[in-house]
């Protein structure tokens, strides 16, 4: 049995559900918005973990679950909780359901895409950058500081800089311009993250089940996610192929972070060097799949169904094709 948790109309979740249908897999979609019907009870006699999950009219035994895809939105912002007091019984039970489901996925020995404990590195970009370099990928030179003089010295060293949030709070990446220098003194109150500007082509890599799906993005914008909005021209996305060594390092990075499924943001600079900016542990892959036709949802469904190696295993990627399948080149 496979569990999907989130809002059924949300595109990535709907695409994984459709891919499971196509495979003929048995699954249950737990609608996060069913705040009145959802309930989970976890129990242990000290030796074995068990329990039940109730959703709608269904009752499921947790020890019959083999795989879980977690794709919820922030439960505090559910429309069904609008107007509920901070400590209302419904709000507390909804939060408890979310928390206990997550706790159970941490403890259960099943495939989880992805465990929350493994998503945490994305909470701090410079922290994650330290983990990225340990996996063998380059990262941009970064300064986090509340000292304007240090920022000016960093700018002197690197020329163009960008700045963005340190945390997982969504922010639009911006270049540090002359106007920004005039208000640099404000950083005294809260350190800000600055990075050397790396020119080149953006590449999003999705790793799942030992495969890499690489998408090249052509955009005139500093932050391609907002290209249409800010620069008037939408980004163009095409499937591409990574050098074996880089694909291998992407798989190793996902492994090192403990992620079954990851969205890795790379940029290939004009010298052909690959730089890694960030790893998204809950990637909205539908944007990339809809533009390229890469079968990412199908790969997620296959992994949930127990196919493929757990994370990347020790296999190496194939050398050609937009989707690497290391299963073809397993070393003895």
């Amino acid at each position, binding site marked *: 049995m496979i569990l999907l948790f989130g809002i059924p109309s949300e595109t990535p979740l709907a695409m994984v559900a459709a891919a499971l249908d196509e495979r003929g897999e048995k699954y249950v979609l737990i609608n996060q918005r069913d705040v009145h019907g959802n309930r989970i009870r976890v129990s242990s006699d000290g030796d074995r973990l068990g329990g039940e999950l109730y959703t709608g009219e269904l009752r499921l035994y947790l020890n019959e679950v083999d795989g879980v895809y977690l794709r919820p939105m922030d439960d505090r912002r559910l429309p069904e909780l609008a107007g509920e007091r901070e400590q209302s019984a419904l709000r507390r039970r909804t939060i408890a359901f979310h928390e206990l489901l997550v706790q159970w996925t941490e*403890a259960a020995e099943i495939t989880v895409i992805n465990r929350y404990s493994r998503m945490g590195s994305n909470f701090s970009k410079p922290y994650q950058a330290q983990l990225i370099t340990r996996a063998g990928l380059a990262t941009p030179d970064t300064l986090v500081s509340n000292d304007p003089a240090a920022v000016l010295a960093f700018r002197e060293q690197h020329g163009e800089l960008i700045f963005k949030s340190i945390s997982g709070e969504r922010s639009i990446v911006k270049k540090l311009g002359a106007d920004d220098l005039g208000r640099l003194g404000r950083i005294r109150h809260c350190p800000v993250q600055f990075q050397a500007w790396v020119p080149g082509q953006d590449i999003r890599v999705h790793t799942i089940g030992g495969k890499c799906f690489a998408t090249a993005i052509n955009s005139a914008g500093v932050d391609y996610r907002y290209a249409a909005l800010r620069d008037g021209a939408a980004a163009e996305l095409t499937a591409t192929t990574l050098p074996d060594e880089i694909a291998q390092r992407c798989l190793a990075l996902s492994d090192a972070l403990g992620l079954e499924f990851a969205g890795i943001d790379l940029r290939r600079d004009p010298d052909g060097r690959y730089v890694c900016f960030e790893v998204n542990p809950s990637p909205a892959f539908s944007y990339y799949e809809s533009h390229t036709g890469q079968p990412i949802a199908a790969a997620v469904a296959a992994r949930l169904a127990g196919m493929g190696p757990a994370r990347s295993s020790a296999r190496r990627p194939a050398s050609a094709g937009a989707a690497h399948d290391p299963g073809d080149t397993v070393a003895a």
Partner: protein
Amino acid sequence: MRDWLLVASAQDTSALWAFERLAARGRPCQVLLTEALQSSDVRWIHRVSTDAVGVTVTLADGRRIDSADIAAVLNRTILAPFTAMAQGQWPDSAYARSEQSAFALSWLEGLAPVVVNSPAARGLAGAWRSATEWFGLARRAGLPCAALTVDSREPDTLVRMPMRPNDGLVVGRQTFGVPDRPGLRAAAVELARAADTPLLGLWFSREGPPRLEMATPHPDLSVGGEFAVEALDELLAA
């Protein structure tokens, strides 16, 4: 010889005591109180690149701590040191708290080659876990666990933290206060390893055979007395 650094709140009496004892053993110890980091006069420079990580913090009184001079950190940070901006008006305060928490995770990780416990996204001095999660890890480590029933319809059942100091303590590969039953001490060490928290506090049931009731990455270090200080000395020197 590079220094050892304790990062802790002034309220963390057991960590301050342990570090005093390490200093008495001749270790080059410095203390960085998290309260001293809350001033906007503190200057931070944290560099991350493919080849190196560095942290320099200059306190309001001019004292400077540079990661290049630190060999090991005893990390007891529970909350990121928030400045006034993080305590002001919403939503700027919420953004500042998120940014300063994320920043603390990174500079703590980069402060020295050895950081005990290393910071995690779910806890700056090591991940905080629910009883369900601790029991999952403990069972795999071979540690017997108490019975457990948690129900989302009864949210209070999710909270389980004993109101007494931890009974047992793991410091690296050594245990203190863990009941002397076959395999129990080795299982406790394995749990600490699996949780990536070489400093780990444990509570055991007091009736019947000892079973794990709860664990914490922020234990009372005085439980192990001078022997625990000796184990901490070995851990930080590793």
